[in-house]
């Protein structure tokens, strides 16, 4: 540490901090979807990473389509792609719930195995459709480049954009889950399925739409992901464990906890990465999480309930 002057350290922290913010945005978008599926519904969705990849591949597909057929549309396609990514992932999620998940609500450990199987099938589909190589869409001009407040600090614009997108989605999820009638029925269904059914909530329909919403948000995460890294068939697998850690560490049913834990995990990893190798940064971050969870199994911000 002595080798760096204090002003250099500030720059390092600022830049690694912003690098961490890109990671934070993707992790948070992933975790928001998973917090709904796992935290609210109790389904261990191991295919969540693949739903993210669906979003990423959709974005890639639309980018290639725009590039070859409607070059004039290039500057605007990305916003459109985000919406399509949401819709495609949500529709797939809807069918996955219908075909698979709804039979397994009473056996949470089995959802883990079934969705792992689903994730393998999805991975192979990506490989057959888009090839085994990693792909990345051509980004519109305005997303490239960086903003430079001082000599030594570069802040990439795509990171800022993704952060804005994340903030928007987070607010939307908050509104939907905690301020709308629909969110009320979702929370009622997960707390007491029988009673919710008795007061006239169509619990099966709620389950299906909730799962689809979670997958759709993963799709948005995928679209955001394309701005910071390239997508391959196994991209989803790389993020699934981290995402689960974010949700568990934050406390399964707490939106604020999810945000706080995504932020601390992403920042810890990104800042450590500068000083030690990337793999050791990951080891230390995960190890710290496991140790904290051993002493505080319910996570950072758990809602107090009797089990």
């Amino acid at each position, binding site marked *: 540490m002595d080798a760096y002057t204090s002003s250099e350290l500030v720059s390092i922290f600022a830049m690694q901090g912003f690098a961490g913010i890109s990671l934070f945005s993707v992790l948070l978008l992933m975790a928001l979807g998973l917090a709904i599926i796992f935290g609210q519904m*109790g389904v*261990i969705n191991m295919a969540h990473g693949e739903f993210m990849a669906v979003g990423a591949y959709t974005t890639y597909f639309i980018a290639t389509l725009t590039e070859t057929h409607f070059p004039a549309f290039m500057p605007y396609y990305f916003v459109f792609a985000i919406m399509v990514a949401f819709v495609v992932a949500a529709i797939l999620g809807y069918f996955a719930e219908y075909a*698979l998940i709804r*039979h*397994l609500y009473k*056996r*949470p*450990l*089995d959802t*883990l*195995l*079934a969705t*792992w*199987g*689903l*994730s*393998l*099938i999805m*991975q*192979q589909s990506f*490989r*057959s459709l888009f090839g085994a190589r990693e792909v990345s869409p051509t980004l519109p001009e305005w997303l490239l480049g960086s903003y430079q407040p001082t000599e030594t600090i570069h802040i990439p614009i795509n990171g800022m954009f993704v952060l804005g997108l994340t903030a928007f989605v987070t607010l939307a999820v908050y509104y939907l889950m905690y301020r709308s009638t629909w969110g009320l029925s979702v929370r009622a269904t997960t707390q007491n399925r029988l009673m919710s059914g008795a007061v006239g909530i169509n619990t099966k329909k709620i389950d299906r739409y909730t799962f689809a919403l979670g997958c759709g948000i993963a799709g948005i995460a995928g679209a955001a992901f394309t701005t910071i890294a390239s997508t391959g068939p196994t991209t989803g*697998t790389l993020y699934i*464990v981290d995402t*689960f*850690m974010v949700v*568990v560490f934050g406390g399964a049913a707490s939106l604020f906890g999810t945000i706080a834990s995504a932020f601390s995990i992403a920042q810890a990893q990104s800042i450590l990465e500068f000083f030690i*190798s990337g*793999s*050791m940064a*990951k*080891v230390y971050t*995960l*190890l710290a*999480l*496991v140790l904290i*969870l*051993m002493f505080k*199994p319910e996570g950072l911000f758990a809602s107090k309930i009797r089990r």
Partner: protein
Amino acid sequence: MSFVYEKLMGGKKGLTGFIILATLILVILPVFLDSFRLNLVGKYLTYAFAAVSLVLLWGYGGILSLGQGIFFGLGGYGMAMFLKLEASSPENTAIQSTPGIPDFMDWNQITELPWFWEPFSSFTFTIIAILVVPAAFAYLIGAAMFKRRVGGVYFAIITQVIAVILTVLIVGQQGLTGGINGITDLRTLNGWDITSDSAKYIFYFVNCALLLSVIVASRFILTSKFGRILLAVQDKEDRVRFSGYDVANFKIFVFCFAAMISAIGGAMFTLQVGFMSPSFVGIVPSIEMVIFAAVGGRMSLIGAVYGTLLINFGKTVFSESFPELWLFLIGGLFIAVVMLFPNGLAGLWDDYGHHITNKFRFISKGFRKIMPQAVLKKLKDAN
């Protein structure tokens, strides 16, 4: 006698299953397969240790561990470290800049054997370490989790994260662990060439004997009072706790025992395959081990072995001829085994097996009718 029959073998059904399995792996496969294929079966059977451990842990204990690869890896790496040290004697490694240390350390500019490698030059220590280190590690994890009543889903996720940590650590610390390539080029065990055909045969039979003893030991645990309590914990944990049992200790014990079994499998893997790498430690192999147990039947010790053999044969055959299809198939299998036959092959046998055995009985009855009475009488007298 009844102790052996009831407790170790699990009654008539368990005994027949055990004898059929033992005949299959000890007699039929060695007679009909060439040494290459037999070595492959031996490799699959080392995974069966982990599958059997998951039957104990998940089927009976209701604890889904997605980290059996951790213990399989610890056992495998323990054995690999011993073999590697033997392979890198100062004479063999004279061309290195530091002779006497494993080659990958030399490539990574390490000039001294790290402290945790030192004791692995002793065979006795290695054997003890293979059994004790995974069990101790499992105790640490188990005590921290089960004493705080963390279980189910959370336990599965935490064990998975630990598997990730271990893999990243092994891959990242290339100089100390051999990195992504693992520990390779293992040739001799106490001066005995382990790559020869005769050694491979011997390891195969040692492996089978160990696997069968592990099944007997597990059966003993399950048929004892301990096994009943374990099953009770899975059904109604609170009620067992209210009856005055310390549930956590039961879970910790079975977790440690399962870790030890998996580690034996890992050590046998290294001996038969001749290397160990992080690709047998992480999430994917750990989940595959769960699917072996699930396909075989999560409540059946013997079924787990068949499940392992079946899936691995399928994997070898399909990934040789239709690599595209394999992931679709195994993915579909995951889904099918959960949705359609949650008790796996063993469950299918319990449900439909009597049709087959009835057919046999029918044939033998018919046979008796056709046979002249005089011959039957003679047979009876002879007995």
